[in-house]
């Protein structure tokens, strides 16, 4: 009879912090394929974020608004600097640029319908403007990207604002890659490329280089649009203080700053996780830049990258942003990573389709494959029908309304009649890191690390 007086040793099962299972998996995958991983969505690593901030509600020293009675405005105007027709919105929560190609035409239509219903804007993406999104969107921002896929003067004139994309938070300094499996005939035709070919998007614009050229490029777009619509400049968050100043000098009406938690349809994992700075740090630097130039109130700031809730929006506004933009939140509202999709009112399980991609609901980031189990990030004729535009529009409308109600709830609690009256003084930080990045005191102290 084999017996032992000692328990089995557990130290032999100690996982390395340096070479943990995730790292071993990464190395073995690289060894097997010879290629870096490309995936969708944003950074998964934990970084200081809006969760690390708290509001100081009203009490004796501040007077709250009656939450269920008194009005709190969330009206937002963007592009007041030079445009004859600034963008006027009912809420400071906008929908970020996501390409037709990454998303199906059904999804683009759903975004437009929801945005129009709640009075906010939606944005095109790499690949041009679709008829569906123009018709369904009351306010549509048209992106001018390095690839210029589908970019044309008719759509420039149809747009309510132009957004020159310098970079995005998921990949500041990087171009794009739409893998061939997502290129159906319509996407291919809009981009003037053969079907099924991997589409590389350039990292730099083809016809200008650097901030001095950007001044002239913006003037060209203003001339083409007869100075009617606002020109936004979108940057991926890196050297935010200097980049925002340069964008303002270049003549932007609105600067969009996208932090590293911002999403992508397909980018190298190493890029997503290792390049760029957190949204929290980016907002602070962007607001400092506008203050430094005395342009607060003249040039509007939109912040994106990991905005999920009305509380996140409220914190961004309190730090000095004029609006936020959401991308991944939109996808999740539509059903991304849900266990099921809806067809004719019935919930149908998508779990097996996630399994076929080697993943499961809650973990999926396979946007780049075009095999989205719930029909959001796909061009497949069968899969795209899994997202019915009416269902998607309703979900997104509900999500946007919820966010805006949360935002006004917090604003009222802080005694504000207008969400834009939220201020940095309303915030404290939970961690030393967040206090330093956001420039607000650590809760219960008057200490802002790095400042006197």
């Amino acid at each position, binding site marked *: 009879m084999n017996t032992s007086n000692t328990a089995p040793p557990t130290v032999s099962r100690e996982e390395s912090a340096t070479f943990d299972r995730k790292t071993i998996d990464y190395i073995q995958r690289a060894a097997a394929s010879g*290629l870096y991983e490309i995936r969708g969505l944003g950074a998964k690593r934990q970084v200081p974020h809006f969760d690390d901030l708290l509001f100081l509600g009203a009490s004796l020293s501040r007077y709250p608004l009656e939450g269920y009675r008194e009005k709190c405005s969330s009206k937002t105007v963007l592009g007041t600097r030079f445009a004859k027709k600034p963008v006027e919105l009912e809420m400071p929560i906008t929908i970020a640029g996501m390409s037709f190609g990454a998303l199906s035409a059904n999804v683009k239509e759903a975004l437009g319908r929801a945005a129009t219903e709640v009075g906010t804007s939606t944005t095109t993406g790499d690949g041009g403007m679709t008829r569906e999104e123009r018709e369904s969107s009351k306010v549509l921002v048209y992106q001018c990207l390095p690839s210029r896929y589908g*970019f044309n003067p008719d759509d420039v004139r149809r747009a309510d604002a132009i957004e020159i994309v310098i970079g995005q938070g998921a990949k500041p300094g990087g171009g794009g890659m739409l893998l061939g499996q997502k290129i159906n005939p319509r996407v291919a035709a809009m981009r003037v490329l*053969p079907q099924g*070919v991997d589409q590389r998007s350039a990292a730099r614009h083809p*016809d200008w280089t650097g901030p001095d050229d950007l001044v002239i490029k913006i*003037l060209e777009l203003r001339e083409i649009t007869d100075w009617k619509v606002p020109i936004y400049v979108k940057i991926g968050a890196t050297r935010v203080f200097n980049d925002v100043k340069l964008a303002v000098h270049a003549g932007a009406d609105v600067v969009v700053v996208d932090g590293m938690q911002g999403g992508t349809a397909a980018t190298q994992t190493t890029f997503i996780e290792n390049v760029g700075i957190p949204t929290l740090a980016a907002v602070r630097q962007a607001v400092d830049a506008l203050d430094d130039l005395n342009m607060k109130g003249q040039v509007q700031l939109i912040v994106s990258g990991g905005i999920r809730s009305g509380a996140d929006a409220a914190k961004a506004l309190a730090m000095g942003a004029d609006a936020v933009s959401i991308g991944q939140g939109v996808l999740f509202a539509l059903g991304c990573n849900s266990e099921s999709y809806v067809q004719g009112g019935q919930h149908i399980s998508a779990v097996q389709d996630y399994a076929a991609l080697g993943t499961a609901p809650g973990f999926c980031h396979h946007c780049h494959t075009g095999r989205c189990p719930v029909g959001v990030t796909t061009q497949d004729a069968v899969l795209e029908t899994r997202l019915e535009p009416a269902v998607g529009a309703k979900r997104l409308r509900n999500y946007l309304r919820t966010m805006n109600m949360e935002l006004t709830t917090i604003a009222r609690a802080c005694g504000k009649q207008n969400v834009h009256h939220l201020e940095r003084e309303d915030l404290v930080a939970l961690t030393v890191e967040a206090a330093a990045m956001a420039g607000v005191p650590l809760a219960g102290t008057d200490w802002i690390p790095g400042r006197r």
Partner: protein
Amino acid sequence: MKAETSDCVVFDIADGSVRALNQFLHDPMGPTRQVVVENPDGAHSIAVGVNAPVEIDIRGHAGYYAAGMNQHATVTIAGNAGPGVAENMMSGRVTVRGFASVSAGASAHGGLLVIEGDAGLRCGISLKGADIVVGGDVGAFSAFMAQAGRMVVCGDAAENLGDSLYEAVLYVRGEVKSLGADAQFEPMTDADRAAVAGLLQAAGFSHDPASFRRVASAKQLYHWNADAKQEY
């Protein structure tokens, strides 16, 4: 400043009134068939976003983005053109009598761009279907990532011609300093010679089409894979 005859309007933009010129070109122009731009003096964004079959004569040098996003207009620049001449042109014709700076015809979808002198770096970058004929030489990285359309170079091409080319086709008469990643020389067919002959005639050049070489994509970068040369 504006002066009119029956169907010709003359703008003297020495006072910097590009805005008035462009607004005039964007509004319904009635019987106007010709617009003359005097004293351009390198101003930027001259005649951008035009969407009308009008003839525009720019009598001097133009700055950045002359005839940008052109649709239907026939634009002639009597001097040199700055960066991005005819960028994103959709249709019509733009002729530069002198030299063109960087990014001439960038991302142009249609129409014909003729540069009678030399063109700078990245001529025809991200080309999306337009035709470009250059009477002289082109700079480095010309036709970078060009997707569709044709480019005829009567002189020489500098380094990395046709880098990361997609479906656009290039024809070069002179020396090619080097080809870019995934670009290759291919034999000229009768169809190529006919295409070159047609473009040369349209541009007003009389070279022998048989003296041109064809450059097109080797298509090795079309699909992302570990065995492709890591040139990107």
